């Protein structure tokens, strides 16, 4: 494996008695889009600030392209940061904001003007370059902030919840735009968010943070389909968590028994022991109602049924493990009190430890 582009080596950060980043290792390759995902206070923003140089690590080292950078002041790290709420300079126009990093690097005036125009055109703001941030909409401000972070061709782009202040539609548009820029320009992007769908949509890899540690790092598919811990399963997407006891093990499959006595076949990548207590994660949209085809199949009674537009949310009784199911609307019309067959494959019944 080639040397990583960015490397955090046993990095800790404490504010007084509070440890926010705890002995953390993380490697990021050149050209990779990595999302740092986690609830607030999990240390993801602090890690970004350590990388940008706004905070100093209590312990450990940070490397960029083989050079140690944790002692370097922020203005010499050459990283483009897109801040939460953008941090545009309110007294400068859009063009002046974008020109700022070029002026700091001592570029000649005509070069600056040309680069500013090109990058503003790229984010479709060429016509609004003389406006001040106060005269721009949220989405336009967001694009100015992006242009300002891109214009000086930094080593890395760091984004701290950059889309949090936008409404839903605009946010989805910007997600696609940023993903597109990443692919087109071959940027290395570290993206902090607490929105799991944002992370799943955009990233090459996702690092899920919890209490200053990375719980799991992997591709969006790995994180969603094969979560390593109960926390990851619960935080990324919606899931049913069910307690069970291991009965027999064999390769990547195991047989477990629920407290109700039901026997299920599960998938796992852990080495399990018989009689071990485990937690299962079963995604609501992977459960089929009214079918008995899959390996895990039993019957239950519907307790409640809620209409959600594109799907129905069906709650099952305790005998069926209290599972929540996302049922397609095209199927049968379910009603509370109905007795129903429930089934899912071993691959969709994942042991999270």
């Amino acid at each position, binding site marked *: 494996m080639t040397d990583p582009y960015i490397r955090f080596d046993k990095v800790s950060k404490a504010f007084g008695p509070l440890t926010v980043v705890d002995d953390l290792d993380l490697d990021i390759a050149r050209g990779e889009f990595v999302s740092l995902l986690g609830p607030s206070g999990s240390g993801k923003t602090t890690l970004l600030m350590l990388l*940008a*140089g706004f905070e100093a690590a209590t312990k450990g080292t940070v490397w960029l392209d083989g050079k140690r950078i944790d002692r370097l*002041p922020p203005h010499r790290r050459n990283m483009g940061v897109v*801040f939460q709420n953008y*941090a545009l300079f309110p007294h400068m126009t859009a063009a002046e904001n974008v020109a700022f990093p070029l002026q700091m690097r001592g570029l000649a005036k005509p070069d600056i003007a040309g680069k500013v125009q090109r990058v503003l055109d790229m984010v479709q703001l060429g016509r609004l370059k003389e406006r*001040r941030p106060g005269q721009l909409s949220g989405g336009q401000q967001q694009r100015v902030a992006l242009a300002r972070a891109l214009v*000086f061709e930094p080593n890395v782009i760091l984004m701290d919840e950059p889309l949090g202040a936008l409404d839903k539609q605009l946010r989805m548009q910007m997600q696609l735009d940023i993903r597109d820029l990443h692919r087109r320009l071959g940027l290395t992007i570290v993206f902090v968010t607490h929105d799991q769908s944002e992370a799943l949509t955009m990233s090459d890899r996702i690092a899920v943070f919890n209490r200053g540690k990375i719980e799991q790092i992997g591709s969006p598919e790995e994180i969603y389909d094969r979560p390593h811990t109960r926390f990851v399963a619960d935080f990324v997407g919606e899931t049913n968590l069910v307690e069970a006891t291991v009965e027999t093990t064999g390769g990547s499959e195991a047989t477990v028994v629920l407290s109700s006595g039901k026997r299920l076949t599960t998938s796992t990548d852990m080495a399990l022991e018989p009689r071990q207590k485990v937690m299962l994660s079963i995604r609501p949209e992977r459960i089929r109602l009214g079918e008995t085809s899959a390996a895990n199949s039993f019957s239950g009674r519907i307790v409640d049924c809620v209409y959600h537009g594109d799907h129905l949310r069906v709650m099952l009784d305790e005998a069926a493990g209290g599972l929540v199911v996302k049922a397609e609307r095209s199927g049968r019309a379910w009603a509370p009190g109905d007795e129903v067959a429930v089934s899912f494959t071993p691959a969709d019944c994942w042991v999270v430890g």
Partner: protein
Amino acid sequence: MNVALRGRLVGLALVAPLLLFLAGFFVWPLVTMMQGAVSDPIAARTLPTTARATANWDRQSPPTPEMKAALAHDLAALKQDQVVGDLTRRLNSAQSGFRTLMSRTMSAVREQGPDVDLSAVDKRWNDIKFWQPIAEAAASRYTDRYLLAALDMDRDAAGDIVTLPESQSANKAILARTFFVSGLVTLFCIVIGLPYAMLAVSVTGWLRGVLLAAVLLPLWTSLLVRTAAWFILLQDNGLINRGLMALGLIDRPLALIFNRTGVVIAMTHVLLPFMVLPIFSVLLAVPRNLMPAAASLGAPPLRAFWRVLLPLSVRGIVSGSLLVFMAAIGYYITPALIGGPTDQMISYVIAFYATGAANWGMAGALGVILLVATLLLYAVYQRLASDKAMGI
């Protein structure tokens, strides 16, 4: 009765008492003070015949017998010594010599009646030098002489405005001193207040509480108490001098009181809160991540300060400077107690003319200058305060 009209009447009824109160006890005094600056009624009131007789005099040819007769007639009508005294003082202020001339003339008029020949009483009555002020003063109830004098100017015999020679000019120097001291205090307030406000914004929690309390505490403390405190500290054997001597930095007490140093120190202390608070509130509104943003874009700390934080705090600095300067030019108590005789500012001179010399004309004229300067500064300040946009 509709709602709007009713609301308007109720509103007016509530505002009216204060409006009347201030009209009577705030506006009227100010108007009276300004009137004092331009009114000169004594000669016009006491010498009506003379005023008519000199109305067409060219002020260059010798006085006519009619003018002398008219003056003698007017003087004979003056019964109260008080009025004679006021008139004499007024005339003497324009031309010295009137004191003896008037007392001699008055006794002659009172002995011999209104038909006395003034040229016989005193030959100075043939001199146009003594007639010019009379004609000037009797012609109008209003004068610009106080306002001119306040700026060290006067009218010459021909009525043209001339600047007084250095030896007779004191007011311009006082105005210059007032603006200089106020400017110096403003400058010191910026030098201390700007970093102080930046510091207060950059910290959080109890530290910010302490920094703000340190600003608010003096603001709430009596001005007199603060001035007294500085009086105690700045004395020759006060705490500051003793401390410096104990540290071996000086071996004789520094002169800190009854001079400009003391005035500037004490006034800076008194007015510093008015600089810190506006800058603080402006900086507080600056998003916290702008300076990190500037750093991430490659700006070293000093350049980031110069390009980002300073332009954004300009509003607060300007507001604070206007407030401090405006308050400083009107200051009376601190210079009066801490300053020496050559450190007194315009307020002191106004008070001196009003209470010491009973010269309402000069007090009013200097008052008008101070008032106009203050109101102009206030208007600019208001403009800034209301003009929230200011390009941001």
